[in-house]
């Protein structure tokens, strides 16, 4: 047996001589991570910043923490609160605080500070401190409250009149230049363990092109990539990391339909849009054409809402109307893709006998906008989406998929919104960045990220 073993070893050693690379798997401490983003933070107060911009929400999570977090299956998990209990009518929720937490300025987290923070972010709630717990009283029943507490705007901040709000998160603010730059350093006393990184530099208001140049020249470790550019990036595609679709590209009418005829015209416009061509040509197949507000992975039923164009039916609807208005369709002038899509929609509408004129001015009859879904919880995502689009709040009877379908169907029936595409969030991440798993909703956990050391 031993003779066999050593003969075998001799042969194998020839093969194994090829092993000469260095590598490591256990995390290493140190280093500065550099992030570039289009997003612009104007404030470091989580209650004041909209949470529907993905990178922005990710950045806020580095400094501020929420009472509850949400896991990959959308279930509430402990955050700054170790436990919670809702009343049977879901109008009151008591959350017990984790002990031993300190803000970055050294002040302990108390129930009073947490209650004040949540009250600021949610004026309609009634939030009180009771010992080591806070009690949230709601005007209406909300079985999704724990998940809602995981939204970035509900992060706990200690606000002082003359300084940047203090958080409890894994990184603390070292330098803050509104709209331009944010430097974060590791919170040595973080309750969840000091992050591996020493610091994170975030450059804001960077165009996608500038981000790409910075990435290629090694000046940025994480950048945003437009989904339609995924196939064209000038570096290894292994560096690209995509979320599940978390953004809705949609047309929103700025006011309610004023008559049944106008509703018919809006239906005709929806039927005239050739999503397949736009998706294949302009979006390079990176987006999912949709007739629903929420993506199919989140609900399971999105395919029920048709996204097929039907020009003949669009013309039939249009022919029922004598007077055809000339609509204006606005888009973000800084987003060249939206301009191209708006022009294509205009042509599609023209084929159906409708008049839609693209414009980059703000005042228009229709808007072509991107809406980032701010939660993996479909109810919260639908509610946030409705708020941004100016739609009525979805009616929430109980937490079933059938009621969700009904609520979404009701929003679509307003004829105020025409969903077009669901898009993923795409980042390019340097190979030196380790453990950089992008969650399926596009969130990062940069406290667990580490950088490969150069020997």
């Amino acid at each position, binding site marked *: 047996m031993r003779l066999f073993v050593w003969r075998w070893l001799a042969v194998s050693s020839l093969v194994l001589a090829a092993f*000469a690379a260095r590598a*490591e*798997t256990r995390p290493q401490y140190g280093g500065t991570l550099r992030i570039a983003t289009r997003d612009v933070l104007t404030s470091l107060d989580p209650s004041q910043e909209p949470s529907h911009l993905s990178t922005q929400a990710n950045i806020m999570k580095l400094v501020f923490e929420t009472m509850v977090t949400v896991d990959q299956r959308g279930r509430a998990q402990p955050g700054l609160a170790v436990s919670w209990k809702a009343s049977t009518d879901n109008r009151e929720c008591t959350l017990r605080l984790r002990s031993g937490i300190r803000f970055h300025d050294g002040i302990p987290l108390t129930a009073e500070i947490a209650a004040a923070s949540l009250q600021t972010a949610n004026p309609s709630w009634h939030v009180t401190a009771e010992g080591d717990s806070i009690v949230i009283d709601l005007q209406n029943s909300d079985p999704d409250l724990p998940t809602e507490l995981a939204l970035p705007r509900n992060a706990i901040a200690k606000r002082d009149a003359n300084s940047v709000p203090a958080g409890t998160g894994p990184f603390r603010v070292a330098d803050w230049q509104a709209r331009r730059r944010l430097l974060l350093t590791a919170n*040595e006393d973080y309750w969840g363990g000091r992050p591996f990184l020493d610091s994170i530099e975030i450059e804001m208001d960077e165009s996608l092109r500038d981000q790409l140049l910075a990435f290629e020249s090694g000046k940025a470790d994480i950048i945003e990539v437009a989904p339609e550019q995924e196939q064209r990036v000038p570096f290894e595609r292994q560096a690209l990391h995509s979320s599940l679709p978390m953004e809705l590209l949609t047309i929103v009418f700025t006011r309610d339909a004023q008559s049944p005829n106008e509703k018919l015209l809006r239906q005709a416009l929806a039927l005239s849009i050739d999503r397949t061509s736009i998706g294949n040509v302009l979006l390079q197949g990176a987006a999912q054409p949709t007739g629903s507000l929420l993506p199919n992975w989140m609900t399971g039923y999105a395919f029920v809402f048709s996204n097929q164009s039907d020009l003949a039916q669009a013309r039939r609807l249009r022919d029922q109307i004598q007077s055809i208005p000339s609509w204006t369709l606005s888009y973000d002038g800084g987003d060249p893709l939206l301009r191209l899509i708006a022009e294509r929609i205009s042509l599609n509408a023209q084929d159906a006998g409708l008049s839609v004129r693209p414009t980059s001015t703000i005042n228009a009859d229709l808007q072509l906008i991107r809406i980032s879904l701010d939660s993996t919880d479909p109810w919260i995502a639908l509610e946030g989406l409705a708020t941004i689009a100016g739609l009525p709040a979805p009616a929430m009877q109980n937490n079933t998929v059938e009621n969700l379908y*009904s609520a979404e169907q009701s929003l679509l029936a307003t004829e105020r919104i025409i969903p077009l595409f669901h898009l993923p969030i795409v980042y390019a991440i340097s190979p030196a960045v380790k453990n950089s798993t992008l969650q399926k909703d596009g969130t990062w956990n940069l406290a667990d990220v580490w950088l490969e050391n150069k020997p």
Partner: protein
Amino acid sequence: MCKAVYNSAILDVSANSEFRGGGLFAPLCNVLGLSTLILALIVPSFASDWSTPEQDLARKVVAATGQVRVAVTFENRSSLGKRDSDIIENGLRSAMQAAGLQLVADQALVSVAISLSENPASYVWIAEIHPSTGDPMVAMVSTPRPEASGAGESFPLSLRKIPLYARDQPILDVAVLEESSTATRIAVLDPEKLSWYRMENGSWQAEQMLAIPHNQPWPRDMRGRLIAAGNHSLEAYLPGVTCQASAGSPARLDCRQSDDPWPLLPELNGTLAVFPSADVANGASTVVPEVSGFFAPTRNFFTGLLTPPIGKFSTAPKFFSSALLPRENNPLWLFAAIDGRVHMIDGVSDQITNVSWGSDLAGVKTACGSGWQVLASSAGEPAKDSIRAYEFPDRDAIAVSADVEFDGPITALWTESRGDTAVVVSRNRDSGTYEAFRLAMACGQ
């Protein structure tokens, strides 16, 4: 526009299991003993009963259509496999017929397109109902998805992976305290407590749990080690904290803030470490000098300071893990340094090896091969981490076993007190569960 037909509420997704150590592994261990090869063939299966949602959806379809002739089509848009989707399709056909529908291919008054779909929490089955006249309708039911479950070349030795324990919370180390054919009593170290469990009726039952006090937050990538110190007492080493657990029942745990070095070898015996089990047949044991290393209290690595020195080396590079290979003259120590290199220190020289390993090493003394093997994790960030056994006939590493794969990154790898096996902990990438295994060497294939 479609009309909705309402159905019953989604059942609650099963709660996050607080503790399921016995659930995953213990019954298998109990039934199969050490039949690891058989264990490896066992795949998670969910004995699903689809009858309730089948009947619910059939009832809703009938409520929408009446008892008429319908043409039904099926499409599986979910992650369900063909076998399950076929079972569900047959079940739905039967349920619809039982509810009074006549399933026909031609001359149907209503066509029903059934889609098996899903979202993160549930399977969602949708019936799109298209009457020959009137508006289309939609009916749907949902049923919870099951929780995710954890579970070439020729080599002279085989490395076996024997499940010990698993749960959702972190596991730093596991010590087997009693065993017959399988482990029957274990101690589990986690960042907050030391726990004792006994195998009863196929599952691990908690005997005692004692909290580990600590003043400072634990470092990220927390590490800790349990060492059986004889007479069933235990020593626990955590960053900046050392604990001693008495052998009594109930046990007592004394912890103190301490920067004391951690033993790099198991089974302390004065100034010597003993590997008694490998040569049990002839009663011999291997004796090598004990070496301890200082662990950085706010980091995840050893500082490199060694006591006593290895020959002329009182320091090694900062390292994550180490392994010993006894030699006739000077024992050879391997250190997985934090820069990714593996250093060989024999007391006279410090050489950098040409191996490409991960950062977790453990040495084992066995009756196989040359008698000493090094277990090393793989390098890089693969979706599945792995461990392989190596020998050093000279100064070059030779793989002597195939890779043993894990469903996620290795978070701990320590030589067990007997010296001939190691405990490995990995975190399942899908379920997030921490899974502890014993790694044992089998001679021959």
